[in-house]
Every structure is written in C-alpha cells, then in structure tokens.
C-alpha cells in the first residue's frame, strides 16, 4: 500500500505535468478532470449560447426547464439519449456508425496538450501545437465519412463543403501559428518550457514552452512586433471560426440550403456526439489562440502590476467572479414571481446561487486560489472567445461558398505568408543589421 501512496504523493511537488513526469495516476486524474470540465463547459455553453443569443434577439430563450432554463441542456441531453437512433436503409452501416466517434475522439484528444497552467496539463509534448493541429485536422475525416455514409445528397454536399473549407483554412491557420512559433525563438534566452533547455535558438512547439516564452519575453505574442502579432492573431481568429464550421462560415450546416449539412441523417445520441464535438472543437481552437497569443494562463500585466499586493488582488479574482455570479442568482431569485407555482424554481435558483457562493468562498482559501489561479485566467480568456462565437452568430449573415474560399485563399493565405516573412525579418533584425553593416 505504501508504495502506491508514495507514487501518488511523489508527484505533488513536481514542477512538471503528470504526463511529462510519467505519473500515470495523476495523468489519469487530469484526464478525468479535463473530460468532466469539458462536458460541463459544453453544457454551460449550450445554455449560455441560447440565452445570450435570445437576449440579442429580443426574446427570452429557455425559461421553462428549471429557473431561467438552467436545466434545459440537461433536459435536452436526456431527450437526445432517449431518442430513436435512426440509420438510413441505404447508409453504409460501419462508416455511418464510426464517423461521429472519430469526430468526438479528435475533438477531445487535442485537450491532452492544452496547458491550463504551468503544471495543469495532461502532458507537455515537445510537438504540442503540431499535435493539436494534426489531431484536430482528423475531425474533417469524420465529417467526410458522415456525409458520405449517409448516402444522401444534402449530407454529401455538406461534407464536400466542409472538407474543402477545413483543408483550406488549415493552411492560413498553420501560417499564423508558425509566425507565433517564430516569436518563441529569440537569441540569448534559454529555458523554454520543460526539456527544452539550451535550445533557445530554435524556439519550441511545446504548448507550455510557448506560454513560458511569453512570460520570459514579458509580452503576449499578440502585442509582439506590433502589429505583426496582432495580424497573426486576427488571421487565426478568423480561420478558427471557419475551422469549427461556425457562423458566418457555417456553410456545411447551412440550414437554409442544406437542411443540416453533413449530419442531416443523424439523430439522437449520434447527433449529440457531433454537437459535443463542435463545441469542444470551439473550445480547443480558442485554447490554441489563447495559448499562442494571449499568454495562456498568465494573468494580465504580470510585469507591470507585480508585488505581493497585486498578487493578492489578482489571486482574489476567481472567488470574486463566483461571488458575482452568485449575486446575480440571488438578484434573480428576488425577482422571481411570487407565486406558489414558482416555489420550486425559486428555491432551485437560490440553491444554485448558494452553490456558486460556496465555490467562491472556497476560492478565497489561499491554498486553493494559488492553485486555480492559472486555470481561472485561462478559462476567462477562452470564455471571451466563446462569447465572440455567439456574438458572430447573432450578427453575421452566412458567406457563400466561393466567397468563403476567396477569403481563405486570396486574403488570409497571402497575408499569412507575408506575415511569416516579416516576422522572420523582425526576429533576425540584429543579425541583418550586422550583415548589412559588414557589407557596407
């Protein structure tokens, strides 16, 4: 028994991720946590999207299941699980069956390397960002398979559109990512992330290494080589919306043209897998954007506003956020109609508020807030992207397919290429100056 406990406790003081440290117990725990957190995030996102979109569109959104529709996603999930699972008679059985799993697998696997904090990741891979791009590019396979296996026109066109779209935008996305990776390589700075000691010349692909580089260089890459970092960030921000098939690039599932695109023939549980995959892919690409350009887990202004006072102030943020949410809950509870019919709902809302307040209070415990600090900032940044996704959906009409391709190939790709060259030139400018001086 003792060796097992030792094995478990031995990791606690480690400065590495469980994967890199080779601690399988903690790696397993992290996987579970990430999976659970992701599921909760998708459920919350579902509710938030409907509510925020509804309020943008002068309506209320879900109001019936639970107070302010808080239980709606759960009701939906139960409905989807209980629904009949229909497979078209002419469908290719095996491919039809496996396609949603591939999409979900690809969408979830990328979270293996997402760094929620310096040690809060399942593992730190030396090719982290490459791994993320590679695995997320596999999800297009699932979509193509789903569209083809349905043996129906609309899904087929949806699949063709989405594969063309995702392959095209991966190029622009990749170029933007490369320019961020170039920024990690700066002369005279060693130690970029775990295991990359002494390789400062070559930069790093490791997700943790990239954030560490931003910390070392005292700048988020979005502001580095201004405005180059900003442009790269914008290219990525556009490409990632296209990559996840969301409005205004939601052509593969443009309901006015192709009913539901590649998943037209899917229903029930299998459809919910596509839904799950879509939202976790959104979170995944947002995580990449946050890691590469917005400093990952770093809190705002760590260099400007440092010292113990500021540290304490920023450390209190997570607790304050939860208390604020709890306050909203209590305010809504007070505003609930005073009618016996709403008694349970009012109690439920109050209970939910109390739960949030409790979490908030727990977050004021120093031992806790030091540990969740990184995760909090990371989550807040990702949440901002999630809000943007909803906002886009409420505002923009849909692009036409040729226009979408035009944006991808004729605007984003040349911009990305030029940006890459400029970033390289900026990174090498002292060498170039020497070189020019030696010639003159």
């Amino acid at each position: 028994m003792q060796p097992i406990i030792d094995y478990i406790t031995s990791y606690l003081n480690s400065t590495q991720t469980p994967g890199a440290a080779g601690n399988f117990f903690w790696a397993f725990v992290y996987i579970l946590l990430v999976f659970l957190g992701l599921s909760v995030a998708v459920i919350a996102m579902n509710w938030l999207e409907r509510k925020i979109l509804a309020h943008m569109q002068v309506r209320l959104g879900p109001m019936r299941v639970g107070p302010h529709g808080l239980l709606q996603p759960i009701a939906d999930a139960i409905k989807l699980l209980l629904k009949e699972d229909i497979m078209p008679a002419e469908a290719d059985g095996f491919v039809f069956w496996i396609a949603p799993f591939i999409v979900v697998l690809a969408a979830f696997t990328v979270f293996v390397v997402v760094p929620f904090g310096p040690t809060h990741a399942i593992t730190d891979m030396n090719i982290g960002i490459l791994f993320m791009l590679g695995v997320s590019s596999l999800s297009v396979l699932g979509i193509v398979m789903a569209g083809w296996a349905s043996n129906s026109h609309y899904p087929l066109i949806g699949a063709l559109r989405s594969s063309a779209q995702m392959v095209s935008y991966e190029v622009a996305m990749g170029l933007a990512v490369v320019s961020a990776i170039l920024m990690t390589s700066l002369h005279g700075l060693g130690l970029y992330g775990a295991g990359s000691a002494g390789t400062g010349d070559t930069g790093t692909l490791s997700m943790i290494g990239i954030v560490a580089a931003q910390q070392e260089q005292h700048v988020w890459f979005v502001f580095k080589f201004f405005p180059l970092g900003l442009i790269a960030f914008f290219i990525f921000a556009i490409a990632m919306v296209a990559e996840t098939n969301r409005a205004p690039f939601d052509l593969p599932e443009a309901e006015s043209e192709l009913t539901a695109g590649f998943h037209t023939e899917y229903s029930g549980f299998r459809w919910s897998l596509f839904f799950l995959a879509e939202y976790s892919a959104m979170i995944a690409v947002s995580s990449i954007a946050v890691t590469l350009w917005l400093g990952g887990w770093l809190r705002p202004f760590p260099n400007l506003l440092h010292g113990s006072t500021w540290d304490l102030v920023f450390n209190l943020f997570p607790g304050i956020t939860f208390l604020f949410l709890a306050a909203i809950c209590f305010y809504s509870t007070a505003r609930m109609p005073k009618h016996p019919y709403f008694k349970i709902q009012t109690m439920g809302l109050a209970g939910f508020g109390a739960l949030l307040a409790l979490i908030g209070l727990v977050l004021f415990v120093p031992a806790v807030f030091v540990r969740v600090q990184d995760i909090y900032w990371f989550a807040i940044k990702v949440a901002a992207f999630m809000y943007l996704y909803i906002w886009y959906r409420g505002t923009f009409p849909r692009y036409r397919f040729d226009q979408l391709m035009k944006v991808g190939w004729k605007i984003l790709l040349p911009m990305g290429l030029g940006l890459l060259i400029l970033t390289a030139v900026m990174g090498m400018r002292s060498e170039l100056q020497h070189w020019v001086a030696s010639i003159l």
Partner: protein
Amino acid sequence: MTEPHSLSPLDLATPDKTFLDANELVINMGPQHPATHGVLRVILRLDGEKVMGLECVIGYLHRGVEKIAENRTYTMFNPYVDRMDYVAAVSNGLGYCETVEKLLGVEAPPRAQYIRVILAELNRMASHQLWLGTHALDIGAITPLFYTFRDREEILKIFEKYCGARLTTHAFRIGGLQYEAYDGFEKDVKNFVAFVAPKIDEYEELLTTNRIWVERTKGVGVISAKDAIALGVTGPVLRASGVKWDLRKAQPYANYKNFDFEIPTGQNGDTYDRYLVRMAEFRQSLRIIQQAVDGLPEGPVMAKVPKVMKPPVGEVYHSIEAPKGELGYFIVSDGSTQPYRVRVRPPSLVNLQALDVMCRGAMVADVIAVIGTLDIVLGEVDR
C-alpha cells in the same frame, strides 16, 4: 456594374439546357425545405455548386380559389381572397372589393377610402417585414427575423383591434367598411408610426452596410429591366431593375392620388437593390400612413350597396399594387348573384417565373437568396 445581358423572350421562357458534362447532380429542393417559403419545389441541376438549370414545381397549395368563387356570392367570396397572399390579406381584400365595386358602379365613401389606405399600407409594411426577416434568415442572419417580428406584432395588434383578426383580416366590405374604426384608432396608428421609424433604421444598421450581406446580395440574381418586363415581373422586383412604375402612381386606385410619396427604384436589378427598394418602401408607406391619418375625414364608411348584389352583365379587370406586385382581379358577371368567373392575377406566380433566369449560373446559395428576394407566398402562387 455592367448592364445585364438580355435574352429573347423564348430564351427567357425555356430553361437553359446547356451544361458542361454529364457529372451533373440533380437535387430536389422542397416541397418541405426550410428556405422555399412554403411548399415550393425546385428541381436543381447542379454542376458542383453551380446551378445549370432549375425547374419549379408548384401547385402543392392549390385550393381552387377560382372555382370556389363561381359557387359563392360576391359577398361570400370576399373572405376567401384573404387566404391567397395570407401575409398581405388586406391588400387582397382591397383589390377584390374595388373590382366588385367597379362592376357594381359604386364607390366607397372618403372616410372608408382613407381607412383602407391606412390598413393597406400597414399591411404592406407587415408583408415587407416578414420578407426581410425570412430573407435575412435564408442568407444566414438570424437576428433581423426577431426584430421584424417584434415590430410586425404592433401592426397585427392594430388589425386585431380593428377587425378581430390578425392574419386573414377580411377588413373590407364591398362598398366600404363594415365597421367604423374603433376609438383610438388614429392614436394607435400615430403611435405606431412614431414607434417604427427608428426600428427601420435598426434593420438597416444590421444589414445595409454589413460586408457579408453586401457580398451575398450584390450582383446576385440580376435581372435587367428588359427581361423583367418581358417576364411580367412587377412590384419591388421590377422597380429594383430601374423601372419607375407603381400602380399607385401609374393608375391610382383608392385615393392614392391624394397622397404625396415617391417610388423608390434601383439600378442594377440585383438582390441588394431589391433589398434597398423595399427598405425605402417602408419609409414611403410610413409617409402615406402619416398623411392619411392626419387627413382622415369624418363621414359614413359604407356606400349604398344593394343587399343582394347583382352586378350588370359584363367583365372588368382591376389591379392594385400589392406588396408583391400587381395583384389583378378579372371578374365576369352574368347578372346573377354569383360571379361567372373570377380570375386572380397573382404577382407571386408571375414573379416566381423569373427564378430560372435569375439563377442561371449562380451558386446553390444564391438560389436561396433569390427565392427570398422574390418575396413569394405560395398561397398566392398556387391559389
């Protein structure tokens, strides 16, 4: 913008049968499709995403309105016309009542005329609002739909207060109106005008300068003025092609000649111009409503009409500018209490004919945009 090419009438009428290779995909869109605005079925022949030709299959909502008319008295048939273009029921009723009045030789009293104009223009706005919401939804912008429905609700409330019905209003009677306007009608209409004017700016804010909206609609579904006339297209679709023609001005009916308003036109005949024309029509309708409600005269609302209507033998064609275009009624009377023949000239049917020409060489997504911009109501197409 180059001048769109014009085809000969026969070319316009026959589908383009030329296509690149045998790898074309035939897609059946509808009759149950979210973007065909009802039960329109379109058979698309695609080369990739490009439309090589299309054929409309209609008639799924055919109820034989014209046959029903032959078995009803003039008064009994009046509510049926509401069911044709059910989003502009008031306009349908206006056209029918005026045609029968012409046949009978009676004229509605001035107050009735004014109230008719107010209601018809309100209905035009309601119809355009429905069009805008669904059109934007087809192109992928979901938010305008809710904005327009919020404001359309105010119009429907006025209808409901006036005659008890919201959609199929049966607001007019042959010879005038059955009811005097309710107390506070004028105030409601005035409030509505003040309420909705800034809302129209709100719609425009969301769409008019939205890059994606402009890209999706500019140069899409172009129809030249010449083709539009050859195809008999009317209403905003014709005006967007640059033909300044509106029956309210060209052959004024009701008392439109008393009102000061303009006919908005476009130049390019594309989807964007049609959008702009209809947005401008919102404002013109508001102008008319404002003038009508300000100058609303007192007096009776019903002319002297015989209890049993037996119009003298003869035939008459009368048309009005419905929200969708020229809505005409051709009624033949044989001197009995029932019309011998009622023919409805539905603007939606004739406008829909232009779909093929407007979509040739376009993308699938453009077909959706063009169906939306034609603003068809299948109840009227099929009757």
